[in-house]
């Protein structure tokens, strides 16, 4: 691969990484602040239950409750966005490795991704 293409891919990777990190942290904080504001606005007495079970079901319930302006929905959404931040960063790296035909690091990235997903699956299986 020529130096020019390699530099272009490196710049794209750095831009994407910064974008993912800043956007997700900003979104996470926004959702949490809204969640806490709703919690206090509604008297600050109702403590939301811990989510558990299938990750997809947690996201589905969160979206459903979000429409009803429940504090728990915004707080869980903030937590989920934060949890997805390293996963999104890893995925962008995997895509960039594929574009650079770097098969070794594509495979390593996929193994790490599989371990991250295994965490979610083992947690729900043992809940």
């Amino acid at each position, binding site marked *: 691969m020529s130096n020019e293409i390699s530099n272009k891919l490196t710049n794209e990777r750095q831009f994407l990484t910064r974008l993912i990190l800043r956007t997700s*942290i900003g979104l996470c*904080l926004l959702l949490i602040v809204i969640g806490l504001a709703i*919690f206090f606005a509604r008297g600050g007495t109702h403590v939301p239950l811990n989510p*558990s*079970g299938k990750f997809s079901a947690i996201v589905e319930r969160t979206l459903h409750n979000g429409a009803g302006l429940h504090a728990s929905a915004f707080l869980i959404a903030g937590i989920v966005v934060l949890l997805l931040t390293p996963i999104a960063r890893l995925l962008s790296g995997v895509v960039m490795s594929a574009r650079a035909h770097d098969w070794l690091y594509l495979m390593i990235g996929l193994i*790490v991704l599989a371990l991250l997903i295994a*965490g979610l699956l083992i*947690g729900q299986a043992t*809940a």
Partner: protein
Amino acid sequence: MSASLMVIVILLGSIFAGGLGSLTGLGGGMVIVPLLTLGFHLPLIDAVGVSLFAVIATSAGAAPRFVGTGMNNVRAGLFLQIAASSGALLGAWAAHLLPSRWLFVIFGVVLLQAAALSFKPTRSDQAGASASSPLALKLRLNSKYEQAGEWIPYHVTRVLPGFAVMVGAGFLSALLGIGSGAFKVLAMDKLMKMPFRVSTATSNFMIGMTAATSAGFYLTHGDTSPLIAGTVILGVLTGSYAGAHWVAVLPVKILRRVFAVVLILVALQMLFKGVGLSI
């Protein structure tokens, strides 16, 4: 204590923890778990589940400043992440099997170790490796970093011992809800002979990924209170941003020593709780 007052106190405590963690480099997780367990009598497993999200937040918050400086050795970080994430899965699983009294004792011992480390100089006096190991060459781990406008190349060696230490670091992170950055830096700096600045930046990259592996476990297992986790994330991020701005103004060396003394006291309390003594 009412729920709203609890949220306010946890928020203030988390701002303090995030600020101290950022100023001293010792990490907020060391403070969050004792704060929630000793201060609010939260079960240790739930406190760990919350703290792991604070660890992801501080790692993600600090990461953009390392991008493009060459400080973060992405290849080394990714390869070692296989070990750290595997250790994290084992640690999360073990945390749900071990009696909580054991966890208090292990936490106390790790806190004492962190306090002892903070009395030592943070910068390494290690000379870099003069040649790379065959595995490091195969994995293309050698790299370069920018210092004062100059790009400095470096070699990487002893990859497998570093890999083994990362399994332990990931295990402790998931077991106790801490970043275990000190162990990761130790492995890269002392064993693999990577430059200290590169080791700390790469460790920051890995800390978030390791915590995410086990945080997913704790979340789907039902050990993460959204109200407390949200409050702690907000507090720790606010504190760490403030800490990063004050680092040039405040006497960090003195703060580090004061924090170490506080850690020793907290460690003793965790140990006493673990062995069933009250003080």
